[in-house]
């Protein structure tokens, strides 16, 4: 494998994923690197940089500090800045050089925390994985560190309400995996929230766009997690490990898929409520798997093949919706990290240009970020679906809100039969 990209872009990296996931939570995130990561992140990966005053910095690692293993400089710099700026937490993420020198993120975070009294988290990113890896790690860290069990009073009150209410008490749903790298800063997050409310759910914490750290701290009051990108999978695992709260994976794109997703959320939340209200331990074993909503199971109605390139869960959801709504065969080419058992058997992991090209040979339609177009076969119709994590800010104004506008988007692009 040559690991080359002769003419296409590259995905945002793990260290940027950490910054993006933690951006709105009032903390201070430090990239331990020489230079460059910070301006790259703030220019291409962070649409909120001009308008929201998050504290994201770079350590400015020098050759001598790296060679001499001078961690004290970094620790002092962080402690000094934290003393001035009062972040709610401190996060430290790494780059290729710090990875190579064996920098111990957790240990240094521990030292910083003991000196400042501010919670500190170390994320051993290397700058060599995609943003999904880093964002997932960061959101998992937030769940691990800042979300506790609901208070006894809250539990008592909730139990009482559930048992005595004449009407069904709405299930509360957290959204896991929200970053602008996958959802930009258009109306998509609001549409996800509205979709849940329209379907009778209460919206809990949104990790991590649109919720404060305090609101996220109450995420354990929810009964199910909706995992909207692979960046939410680490947090979902931790939510289950700590609180046994289960998760459902997918996006409410398209009518049929939305109905199936609602049903999956309702059933899953119901199981959890039964578990929580009955306290029966054996119920817990039934919640160990993260549920995946129904896949591309209906028989195809035509011979066309629609290839969708991009992040795993978004691409899967778009592909499912197209299959459900139009009957066309679909194939997901996932170019970012995505754990096993999420994609369908005929979907593919395609980290490099060389992996993608052969998988497009029989596609009649390709849906992907515009920067993929040069490697797509000329016989296939190319439909642009800009993705901030791939093309940054270039096509930001063209990123659709597929939760709200899937029907009109498919119609405008001639996908509907």
């Amino acid at each position, binding site marked *: 494998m040559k690991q080359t990209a002769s003419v296409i872009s*590259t995905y945002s990296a793990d260290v*940027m994923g950490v910054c993006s996931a933690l951006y709105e939570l009032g903390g201070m995130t430090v990239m331990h690197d020489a230079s460059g990561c*910070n301006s790259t992140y703030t220019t291409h990966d962070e649409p909120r*940089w001009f308008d929201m005053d998050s504290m994201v910095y*770079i350590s400015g690692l*020098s050759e001598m500090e790296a060679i001499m293993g001078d961690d004290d400089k970094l620790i002092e710099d962080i402690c000094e800045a934290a003393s001035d700026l009062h972040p709610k937490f401190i996060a430290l993420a790494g780059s290729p050089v710090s990875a190579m020198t064996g920098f111990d993120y957790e240990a240094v975070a521990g030292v910083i925390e003991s000196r400042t009294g501010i919670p500190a988290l170390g994320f051993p990113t290397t700058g060599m994985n995609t943003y999904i890896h880093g964002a997932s790690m960061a959101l998992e860290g937030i769940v691990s560190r800042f979300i506790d069990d609901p208070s006894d009073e809250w539990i008592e009150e909730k139990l009482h309400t559930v048992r005595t209410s004449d009407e069904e008490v709405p299930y509360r749903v957290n959204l896991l995996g929200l970053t602008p790298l996958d959802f930009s800063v258009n109306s998509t997050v609001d549409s996800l929230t509205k979709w849940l409310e329209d379907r009778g759910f209460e919206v809990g914490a949104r990790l991590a766009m649109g919720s404060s750290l305090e609101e996220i701290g109450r995420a354990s009051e929810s009964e199910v997690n909706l995992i909207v990108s692979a960046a939410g999978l680490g947090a979902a695992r931790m939510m289950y490990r700590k609180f046994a709260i289960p998760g459902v994976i997918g996006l409410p794109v398209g009518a049929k898929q939305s109905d199936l997703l609602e049903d999956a959320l309702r059933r899953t939340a119901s199981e959890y409520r039964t578990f929580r209200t009955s306290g029966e331990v054996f119920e817990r074993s039934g919640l160990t798997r993260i549920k995946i909503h129904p896949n591309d199971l209906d028989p195809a109605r035509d011979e066309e093949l629609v290839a969708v390139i991009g992040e795993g869960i978004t691409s899967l959801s778009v592909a499912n919706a197209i299959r459900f709504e139009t009957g066309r065969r679909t194939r997901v080419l996932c170019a970012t990290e995505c754990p096993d058992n999420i994609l369908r058997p005929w979907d593919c992991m395609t980290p490099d240009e060389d992996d993608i090209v052969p998988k497009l040979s029989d596609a009649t339609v390709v849906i992907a970020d515009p920067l993929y177009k040069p490697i797509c076969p000329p016989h296939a119709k190319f439909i642009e679906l800009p993705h901030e994590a791939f093309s940054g800010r270039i096509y930001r104004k063209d990123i659709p809100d597929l939760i709200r506008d899937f029907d009109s988007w498919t119609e405008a692009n001639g996908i509907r039969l």
Partner: protein
Amino acid sequence: MLKKLNEDAGHKDIPGIRIADADFPAPFRSGLEYSSPARGTWNIVHTGMLIPEAHEIYVCGAGCLRGVVLTAAEMGTMDRFSTVAIRENNLLDGDMEDLIIEGVSDILGKLPKRPPAVLVYTSCIHHFTGTDLDVVYDRLAERFPDVDFIDCYMNPIMRKSGLTPDQLMRSRLYMLLHERPQSDNAVAIIGNDLPTLEDSDLMRLLRASGLRIHEITSCRTYEEYQEMAESVLYISYNPDAAPGGDMLSERLGGRHHFMKLSFDMDEIDEEFDRLAEVIAEKCFSEKEGAEEKLIEALSVIRSEGRNEVSDAVSETLGLIGDTPVVIDYTYCPRPLGLARMLLDNGFNVTKVYADSLPAADRPSYEYLRENYPDLMIHPTVHASMRFASTENSISDAEEAASGCRVLAIGQKAAYFENTDHFVNVVEGGGMIGYNAITGVLRLMREAYNTEKPMKELVQIKGLGCEVCVR
């Protein structure tokens, strides 16, 4: 205005220091670094694209590739740009040389047309793993004898060791020039990202002297670029270009002459006198009457320049009066020299944004300490600068009512001061000579009279990089 995410966060005071109390060249302690959204300065992708028809290949981790690939995408040069991604296993496998050789070969095999030159950018990882770059380039030259390869670097870890990345990149621009017979009628202006303006005094002087002028910004083909090698004199005026000029001189044998970009009229005269001497020596030694012609042209430039400066100062001061003026280091290589010229002419310069003070600005630093001790120096990367824009913001209504409450020279100054009245220029804008003074004064008048959409403009990367798109 910035939305506050943490009500407790933020520094009460924007960091800054009176110039009288500022150490030279580093007035501020280094610490965590903030990156402002002002992006007009060029990076190594933009600069490398100045070589016509050349192809850039970056070999690094995804995090490092991200910024450069999107620079190329935003400037519309993805057809001249490729990457080889380093993965974690490559660190363990010790196959860095193979990864570069096979990766570059794979890319060249896929390109629709073989480029005449390839700039291969290696990174911090290669430096730390001791990658044998000599072997890499030898193998590539063997495989592709029709391609000129040049070693370029994206290794910011080395920014405090030896040449800065900017100096290094500017030096690489001319390493591909092949030796050819030199002509004493040809000169090259080297090391600039932006073209030297035709109405600048430097161009006027060179044109009046009848010399053939080469500048990389005007080369349309690789062959035109190669023609630069015929130059007998290499003129640079960006301090970061000087090391590259010396290397070029050593390699091809022409003479490198560095002239200071100045805002002091006496110094401008001295610099042009020195240049004229060098031109006379290198270009006119066997041309009768040419030197006289040069001296005459210089005399005209001088008298016209001084008159124009005098008029421009009066007109500009009459317009903007005591409106506070702030300057940042991205405007030009000598921000303190600019501040000094403006202060001496009665302008109300209140702040200079600069993290370090350029060596070339030492005389101005001493002068300003003595004569304008309260001039404030502010950093741009200090962690607390995250909140400067908010501290300096006012409501839209107040902004509209106040007119030009502050005039910024440079994008970072505009961002930190939250003003739409600003001079949108980087790297001196191709102005040199008296024209550098009249030019900035003209731009100040325009900025005073007309607002610009600061938020949109300063976020565009590589101001003026369209010159690379060929």
